[in-house]
């Protein structure tokens, strides 16, 4: 934040002092008179989105604009806390894991109901979880891979497991295990599960979350209304949600979304470009929120001994990868690309992820160290490295320009290759790249997903880098069935240490979710996993 200019000396200084005193007195008086902001129920808010939802169903949601809306319409057995790290009771008021870790029982709340007023029972939970773990249906079935059977006896639901799975508790707070109504599904038109899901979504589905879908014009708008039967009590003791209605407007253009908010036509706009954050922070009518997120921006480094075209890969040498990390001034990148809103990565996972380890930024800028390491690795001055970036991305362009300049001081000639998103994914999958930009947001409130994605070789060749570390792979496998939380935390600590030392990535930075809201809107939350949560949001009339 820029410093205020200091007050002049002498007479002027006294006047300033007097004014400050006066202002403080007025402010204190105002505070004494003003009551604390009281919560208001009812009313409607409008929310400008960057992309539209196509099918909000726990099992078929596969894009973020769908996934992040699921918790508003469908409730889960457990909830993820607003900090992204804790697990709270949801539709299940309590749960117990057996000592051998091979079964988990859940006690459902007696007062849980669907939006049509029918009670939510153990049968609905069995139906929903069986649907969620059917690999023929959604892409997320693998999350429940450890589950052998799901059964219900009254309001007690039991999951029997093939092997212990410490991530399961977090998974039962994840969108794809949300509870749908078995009866509504059976009654929906269509023969296949997918047809029924689409038919239900098209026609105001019966749901279990704080809101119901009321209206939808694809590509334009969507309206949620309050579920009058929702169980969770609010701060005033009456059931959530506080809002009667939310209208979502689809405005893909960043500038237009912001203009619409500034013109007072909407109450909130998401995905504010970081370049506009300072300006909106200064707007007295707006609250510019930067929600902590699990979003990390990094650059996978190809670690194979040779590139796809057969030429020798200097980055196969760990010293070169470390040197590239040391030669990168992350603080500068954070300032340039995220306009100071981000923070350098301290581990392979974001600081808001469970079992995150590491409190200092990885590889602080040290040009001399970088030069020494490159010399030790025998890298010739002027070695060319190709950096693949997204065409049209201002962030990537800035990052490339900065890196080119930073790395040239270490004797590396960085060259750019600009491609579009699908091409970049293709190159990543086939290993046909040298180093490229990438990002990640956790879908599950457990470190297993991001760790598997970035480092476990058998899954996706460690995010396509080809990095294959037997100790890391073994630790990952063990940690996936480890039910002793202490041991699991130790395993994660070690994995994060190995990963940091081996540097298969250029560790860049974490960024928050930037949402700008009208001052009238309170308590809207975007969770670290990205979910837009409106259950506790309210709006002054």
């Amino acid at each position, binding site marked *: 934040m820029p410093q205020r200019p200091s007050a002049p000396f002498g007479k002027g200084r006294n006047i300033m002092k007097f004014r400050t005193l006066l202002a403080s007195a007025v402010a204190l008086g105002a505070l004494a008179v003003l009551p604390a902001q009281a919560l208001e129920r009812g009313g409607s808010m409008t929310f400008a989105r960057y992309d539209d939802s196509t099918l909000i169903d726990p099992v078929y949601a596969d894009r973020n604009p769908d996934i992040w809306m699921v918790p508003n319409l469908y409730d889960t057995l457990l909830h993820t806390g607003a900090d992204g790290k804790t697990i709270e009771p949801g539709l299940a008021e309590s749960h117990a894991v057996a000592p051998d870790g091979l079964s988990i029982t859940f006690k459902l709340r007696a007062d849980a109901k669907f939006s049509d007023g029918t009670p939510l029972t153990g049968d609905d939970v069995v139906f929903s979880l069986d649907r969620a773990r059917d690999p023929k249906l959604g892409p997320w079935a693998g999350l429940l891979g450890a589950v052998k059977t799901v059964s219900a006896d009254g309001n007690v639901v039991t999951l029997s497991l093939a092997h212990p799975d410490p991530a399961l508790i977090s998974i039962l707070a994840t969108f794809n295990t949300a509870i749908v109504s078995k009866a509504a599904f059976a009654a929906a038109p269509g023969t296949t599960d997918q047809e029924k899901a689409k038919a239900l979504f098209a026609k105001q589905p019966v749901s279990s979350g704080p809101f119901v879908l009321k209206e939808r014009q694809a*590509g*334009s708008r969507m309206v949620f209304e309050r579920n009058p039967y929702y169980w969770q009590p609010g701060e005033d003791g009456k059931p959530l949600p506080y809002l009667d209605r939310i209208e979502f407007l689809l405005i893909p*253009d960043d500038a237009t979304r912001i203009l619409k908010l500034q013109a007072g*036509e909407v109450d909130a706009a998401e995905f504010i470009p970081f370049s506009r954050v300072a300006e909106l922070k200064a707007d007295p009518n707006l609250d510019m929120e930067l929600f902590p997120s699990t979003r990390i921006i990094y650059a996978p480094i190809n670690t194979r001994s040779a590139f796809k075209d057969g030429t020798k890969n200097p980055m196969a040498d760990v010293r070169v990868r470390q040197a590239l990390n040391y030669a990168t001034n992350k603080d500068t990148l954070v300032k340039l690309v995220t306009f100071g809103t981000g923070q350098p990565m301290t581990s392979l996972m974001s600081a808001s992820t469970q079992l995150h380890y590491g409190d200092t930024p990885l590889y602080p800028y040290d040009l001399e160290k970088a030069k020494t390491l490159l010399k030790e690795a025998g890298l010739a001055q002027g070695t060319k490295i190709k950096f693949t970036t997204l065409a049209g991305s201002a962030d990537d362009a800035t990052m490339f320009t900065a890196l080119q300049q930073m790395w040239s001081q270490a004797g590396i000639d960085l060259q750019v290759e600009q491609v579009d998103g699908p091409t970049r994914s293709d190159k990543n999958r086939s290993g046909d790249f040298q180093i490229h930009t990438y990002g990640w947001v956790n879908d599950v409130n457990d470190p297993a997903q991001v760790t598997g994605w970035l480092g476990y070789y058998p899954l996706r060749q460690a995010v396509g880098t080809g990095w294959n570390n037997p100790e890391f792979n073994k630790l990952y496998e063990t940690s996936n069935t480890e039910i002793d939380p202490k041991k699991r935390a130790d395993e994660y600590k070690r994995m994060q240490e190995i990963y940091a030392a081996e540097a298969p990535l250029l560790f860049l930075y974490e960024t928050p979710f930037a949402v700008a809201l009208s001052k009238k809107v309170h308590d809207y939350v975007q969770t670290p996993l990205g979910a837009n949560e409106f259950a506790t949001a309210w709006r002054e009339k």
Partner: protein
Amino acid sequence: MSSLNYLLSRLLQIVPTFLIVMIFIFVLVRLLPGDPALAMADAKATDAQLEIVRQSLGLDKPLPIQFAIFLRHTLSGDLGQSILMKQPVLDVIMSRLPATAFLTIYSVALAMLIAGPLAFVSAIKHDRPADLAIRSIFQVGLSSPVFYVGLVLLTVLAAKLRWFPVGGYGTSFFDRLYHLILPALTVAFYTSAIILRNLRASLIEVLDAEFVQFARAKGLSPRIILTRHVLRNALISTVTLLGLSIGNLMSGTLITETVFAVPGVGRLMLEAIFARDYPLIQGLTLVFCVIVSIVFLLTDMVQTWLDPRLRPR
């Protein structure tokens, strides 16, 4: 040849055009780098999941077979399933087409309303200060990028002065006229510049023509000279120009619809390309092709109506 036969022969000529466009777009879309299965399945999918997606899209089959399937389905009116929207392509396009049609017609009407009177003034005040002023304003229109004009209009007229809404589509007819005025003006800004230039030139030419001088000499009233002789003749080339620029107008909506949050097919095309949604890109191209062909046909018919010399004998 009767008018009906002429119409039928023109319709038949469209068929090979479609076929060529379909082959062209089918090949072109597949030349785009990137895997639609990847775009569909999310980057986090495993290779096995990707293979399932590829099979379900028929992408594992050889190209000629994919094309044969595409052709057979298209001829039976089935444009396939959109990967992105998870709905039949035709349903998706039909739900988005009205917004674009509304915007395009609105823009053309606005462009004519702006360009028509100004072209008259320009033609009558030929090379005098008024003419020069009008021409220079529209030179700006011709050379300004559409997205820039859109953003300027948005910032000034909507955000600062609050005369119009910033974006959106409205619900009733008049609500839409109100909501779409800025995007329509944005598109009209460029179109009116083209119309003005053309109409002004033909008006000057016609006003000087011998038949107009003759009509004046006959003592016909200026109103009759203007509507029966001048306008009718001057409009022929303008109608042709409008018809030919319909493709341009539709591609203009690609950007305008994104900036102004209008749920039309222009924005849909942009989304489809980014998602490598093959069926949707193919379907949209086909629909664009049908629309442009129909507009060309209509243009021809209006031209023949305006100019009897073009009528089939």
